[in-house]
């Protein structure tokens, strides 16, 4: 599979096709698989609503696109590419482990913190449905920053040089992001479709969604521990 994408990269004279191949190479590599699995869990949390899961998947991809485009723009406008990529390659994986564990613990309600003065504002946010969508975008924004060694090379070493070569290449990170998000969207949607297929059984078990969310929380913690072990031990 990888050879197929490498051949596309070598022979393609169309930058968008190269960006697509790079994104798919990133998506199928074992390295970012753990964050992808976590993302699938997170965007499937509204599992009773298939359309919502699909929209969450698209918004998660939008979040990734914003990060990838933003980073490319910063380099385009003169940031030191080597220093920049070095920073993300060095720290990307280091921050994602603790972050996933903390999010998991909050999802399980093991930790509860009330930010002073924030409660009224956040209560307003909570009441609006669109903030629910915002979570998926935020997750995409953050997860895209977690470069593993392989995806770091594909993005900073190959995609960014193509992107910053001229202003007309600035759409390429969005295509890259779409390709990295496709497996997440597809799997989340298939999961939601399969669960809704259970139909009657699902309707009767009212606590199913609560338990599903708990499983996702545990998934966050396990993947976080995996990253911690990988990076720190």
């Amino acid at each position, binding site marked *: 599979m990888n050879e197929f994408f490498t051949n596309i990269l070598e022979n393609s004279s169309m930058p968008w096709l190269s960006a697509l191949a790079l994104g798919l190479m990133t998506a199928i590599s074992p390295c970012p698989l753990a964050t992808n699995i976590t993302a699938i869990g997170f965007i499937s949390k509204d599992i009773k609503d298939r359309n919502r899961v699909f929209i969450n998947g698209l918004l998660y991809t939008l979040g990734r696109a914003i990060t990838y485009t933003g980073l490319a723009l910063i380099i385009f406008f003169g940031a030191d590419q080597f220093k920049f990529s070095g920073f993300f390659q060095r720290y990307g994986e280091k921050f994602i482990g603790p972050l996933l564990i903390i999010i998991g613990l909050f999802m399980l309600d093991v930790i509860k913190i009330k930010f002073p003065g924030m409660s009224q504002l956040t209560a307003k946010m909570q009441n609006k449905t669109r903030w629910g969508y915002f979570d998926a975008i935020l997750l995409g924004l953050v997860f895209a920053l977690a470069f593993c*060694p392989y995806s770091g090379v594909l993005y900073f070493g190959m995609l960014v040089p193509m992107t910053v070569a001229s202003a007309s290449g600035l759409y390429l990170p969005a295509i890259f992001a779409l390709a990295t998000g496709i497996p997440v969207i597809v799997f989340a949607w298939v999961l939601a479709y399969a669960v809704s297929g259970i139909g009657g059984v699902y309707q009767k078990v009212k606590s199913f969604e609560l338990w599903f969310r708990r499983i996702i929380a545990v998934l966050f913690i396990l993947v976080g521990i995996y990253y911690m072990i990988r990076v720190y031990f």
Partner: protein
Amino acid sequence: MRTIRFILAFALLLPVIACNAQTTRKASNAVTSGKVEAYYFHFNARCMTCKTVEAQAKADIESLYPELVKTGKVSFKAVNLDEAEGKAIGDKLGVNGQTLLLVRGEQKINITNEGFMYAVSQPDKLKAVIKEKVDGLFKM
């Protein structure tokens, strides 16, 4: 859920804060030498492809230039940027991240992209690239 939102937002700002806090390091002069040195720079956390790139590049150097490796005219060194010694070498050569680099005196050729594209699925292509670049460096 709102707490999670704050954590995610904070995580997003973290790189900006940390990046600004970093001091600018001046790139010092490269290692001056008549021999060709191949370096593979990495961090503590390493993926399968990364390990393959290192192993393949090392094997290629040793099989392409056995005599020169023995006499020390060609060398291969894996460098961990998470260690003080490795960081010092990285600073000297202007390397901040995962990199496969060929160095001869002031000349540096970065073949990281080729390494990651070919090491796993088409190792012969990586070998050809290494040969072409190392031979080219000796002709300079």
